[in-house]
């Protein structure tokens, strides 16, 4: 993928994103901020699904948990933005470790079922402890100012600052994932996805590495939830709901699993779609469902997978 064409497109897109606040309306800037946060969620899901071969249908657990830890720590405990974000990451990582401990000992369908069960339990807990979580009413929050040494930048009242903060963090995460994929551990994830038994017979404890993949994915999914709530100034347990879990799966399959960028594309496409079609067509989830079925049957490699296939054939 390291072609000149790719780099050109990549920098073009980044330049557009970087300059958006200068020419985009505040509505679009808000929407794009949301999508960038969701892109991190998408990338994190791709790590376990597209790169390690584990399908989780409960990833909203980490997204929502990160959002809640971020929000609750600001509402009840302290008012340092960095600390809250950090707590969101650590908290999600711990939850991912606990769930992963059980989940990775299962394969295929059983793995999926375990992720669903934990997800449902946590969702219902959020209703049970409505006094803390606000249930589906949710909790509004006031985002603390960003402290950079002696500088203090308002995030809550400054959408542009918010935008650049989210962009910066997610870009760094993207770089991290990019390095991870190219590393020996990244190659090992791919081997596990390709043939887990064979990987064991080479001498690798595949449970350990699947757990590592799961925890990294969970931690960054939590961060994306925190960034999402930071942007929307709000959290509610819809972020823990199974429909959120399905969202990220749909983005990944349609965009193209195992490419990091494919799922990001999926997040963009479907968020825009939802934003503009839901107005005119209340039953838009049906359309999403049909699109998903179409892709699973005819284009299982997703949009990006399909395009990459074309490029490869063109080269020959």
């Amino acid at each position: 993928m390291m072609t000149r064409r790719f780099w050109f497109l990549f920098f073009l897109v980044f330049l557009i994103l970087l300059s958006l606040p200068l020419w985009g309306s505040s509505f679009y800037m808000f929407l794009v901020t949301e999508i960038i946060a969701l892109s991190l969620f998408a990338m994190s899901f791709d790590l376990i699904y597209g790169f390690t071969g584990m399908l989780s249908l409960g990833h909203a657990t980490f997204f929502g948990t990160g959002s809640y830890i971020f929000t609750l720590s600001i509402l009840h405990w302290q008012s340092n933005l960095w600390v809250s974000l950090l707590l969101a990451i650590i908290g999600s990582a711990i939850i991912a470790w606990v769930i992963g401990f059980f989940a990775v000992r299962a394969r295929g369908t059983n793995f999926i079922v375990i992720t669903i069960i934990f997800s449902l339990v946590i969702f219902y807990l959020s209703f049970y402890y409505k006094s803390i979580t606000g249930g589906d009413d949710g909790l509004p929050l006031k985002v603390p100012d960003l402290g950079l040494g002696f500088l203090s930048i308002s995030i809550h009242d400054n959408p542009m600052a918010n935008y650049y903060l989210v962009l910066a963090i997610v870009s760094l995460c993207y770089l991290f994932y990019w390095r991870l994929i190219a590393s020996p551990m990244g190659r090992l994830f791919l081997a596990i996805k390709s043939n887990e038994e064979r990987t064991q017979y080479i001498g690798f404890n595949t449970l350990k590495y699947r757990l590592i993949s799961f925890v990294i994915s969970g931690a960054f999914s939590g961060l994306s939830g925190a960034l999402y709530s930071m942007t929307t100034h709000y959290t509610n347990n819809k972020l823990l709901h199974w429909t959120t879990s399905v969202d990220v799966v749909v983005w990944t399959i349609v965009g193209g699993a195992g490419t990091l960028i494919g799922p990001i594309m999926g997040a963009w496409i479907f968020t825009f779609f939802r934003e503009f079609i839901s107005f005119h067509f209340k039953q838009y989830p049906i359309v999403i469902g049909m699109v998903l079925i179409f892709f699973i049957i005819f284009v299982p490699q997703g949009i990006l997978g399909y395009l990459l296939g074309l490029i490869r054939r063109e080269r020959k």
Partner: protein
Amino acid sequence: MSEYLLETRLLTKRFKGVVAVDRVDFHLMKGKLHAIIGPNGAGKTTFFNLVTGGLSSTEGRIFFQNEEITHLPSHEISKRGVARTFQITSIFRDLTVKGNIWIGALSCKRFVGPFSEASRILDLQSKTEEIMGLLNLQDKQSVVAENLSHGDQRLLEIGIGLSTEPHVLLLDEPTAGMSAEESTRTAERIKKLSEKITILIIEHDMDVVMGIADLITVFDQGRVIAEGSPTEIQENPAVQEVYLGT
């Protein structure tokens, strides 16, 4: 005892009512090309699975390089230097030939980290090149494993095993599905490899077995019924009876 690389004592595996492996005492000597043969249902593959940690034994003990490995999981046994291939080819189909071998080479590293760039790790690169050269696969290094011929896939599987730098190579029916000519070539390759590494092979192809094995163990109904050189085994009446039923 010390010259035995692999040893089993009274190794037994019972399934519901069936004794697949029955109190087997087996010894594999270092540097030898040792073959296991036997009619259908003799317990040969079950034996392999027990020894490589794929199945847990009912009774008995297994030793590798004088260390007891009886209850270790498969990845722990592999780490100690036991590499195996499967009767039905088990490779990384969506990775390239080079990618396949590279993962095997990676297993020798104590730490698999998320930070260095995989393709820049020099010693892994050179090891991969070396193994590909050994098996004459370097011209196909960028071919996705799925697209290789059957014979090359079988070879790649052996290559993955070799790249883990094992002390012993366990081959399960390496010539399965090959024509007579391909079997002969594969047999020659295996014989050449045996100069550098101890090999234990399950085979049904008698031309291959008699041609390359130093020592042959014959299994029947889960038990060892004979052991000896190819000539001895061919002359052994008990073995004839087991195969011919006369």
